[in-house]
């Protein structure tokens, strides 16, 4: 799935990005906001993102898939806590 947006100069592939991030062991849903990929990880995956190598890998994957920015949201209700997904959930 590609996500064109205002001012787009690139083709972004959110589905492929979410799958690639999942292969790093980071389970999350992914919300696309233009060039920003917003990750909503399950609680158990937050720790993985504390590792610099994992963050670098996520950033590199995001660039490969056409995103300029990646952010992580950790809502107060711990959205996704205890909900270990087998496949990434996409939202837009």
């Amino acid at each position: 799935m590609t996500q064109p947006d205002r001012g787009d100069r690139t083709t972004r592939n959110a589905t492929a990005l979410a799958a690639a991030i999942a292969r790093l062991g980071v389970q999350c849903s992914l919300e696309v906001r233009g060039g920003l990929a917003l990750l909503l990880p399950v609680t158990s995956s937050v720790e993985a993102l504390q590792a610099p190598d994992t963050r670098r890998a996520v950033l590199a994957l995001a660039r490969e898939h056409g995103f300029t920015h990646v952010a992580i949201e950790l809502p107060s209700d711990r959205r996704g806590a205890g909900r270990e997904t087998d496949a990434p959930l996409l939202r837009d």
Partner: protein
Amino acid sequence: MEVPSATLPPIMDIDATAFSDPILAGKEADLASWLSARAPVAIGFSGGVDSAYLAVAARLALGPDRVLAIIGRSPSYPEAQWAAAREVARSFDVPVLELDTAELDDPRYAANPSNRCYFCKTELWSRVVPVARERGFGTVADGTNADDLSDWRPGAQAGREHGVASPLAELGFTKQHIRDASKRLELPTWQQPSSPCLSSRLPYGIEVTPARLKQIERAESALRALGIAGDLRVRYHEDLARVELAADELPRWLEPRRFDALRDALVATGFERVSLDLRGFRSGSLNVLHGVGA
């Protein structure tokens, strides 16, 4: 050959500049000459790293009667920076004049196009330059540095249109040169993070309003109150705040309990959702997001 210590000059007689970077010392001398040749000089003064250094260098080179630091105040100018600017001026005996500017009243600015800064600086210089000239200051200068020349800076055009000089850029002062020179002068701004106006936190096309600027200012103040040091931006994505932190700050704020504190602080300022940018702070982040460049 080892010199007996008794033959060394007393430490207080040693010229401190002998220990400084000779390239920087040369630039400082060039700046003093530039200022002396064009005095009296009025300076657009925000209290940021660059304009604070320029104002103090001018005060030292020209004395108090031939320099005037002019502050343009508006909702896009953070209160904390205004206070810092006044403190620098007070500490270094730099004469200050404050003017109100009204860039938000210009619909071309408020619409937040990618050349928004042009309209802001047009408003600033159209107020500052006539006042400076009326007071006998034939030269008006700003703190643009050599690094800025390679960045997307539409505001620089407005400066040129109003005859504003940029001696730091002209003389090849990079940001690091300015920080080093500021440290030597014991300016409190020497390690201060860069501090562009609050409107820079809004993506292009999102209207600039006083309420949004105030929300951003409160959000960044709240994060400073949590102890976040260094570069910090709260990027405004309507319901979502995207926080950019310095690279060395980022890991500890990804720890869930700290992230909770960060999120709670920003929700209290009106954001519904809070996120942390995984790359951390980068100058011109929203230019990258919109594919805008020099």
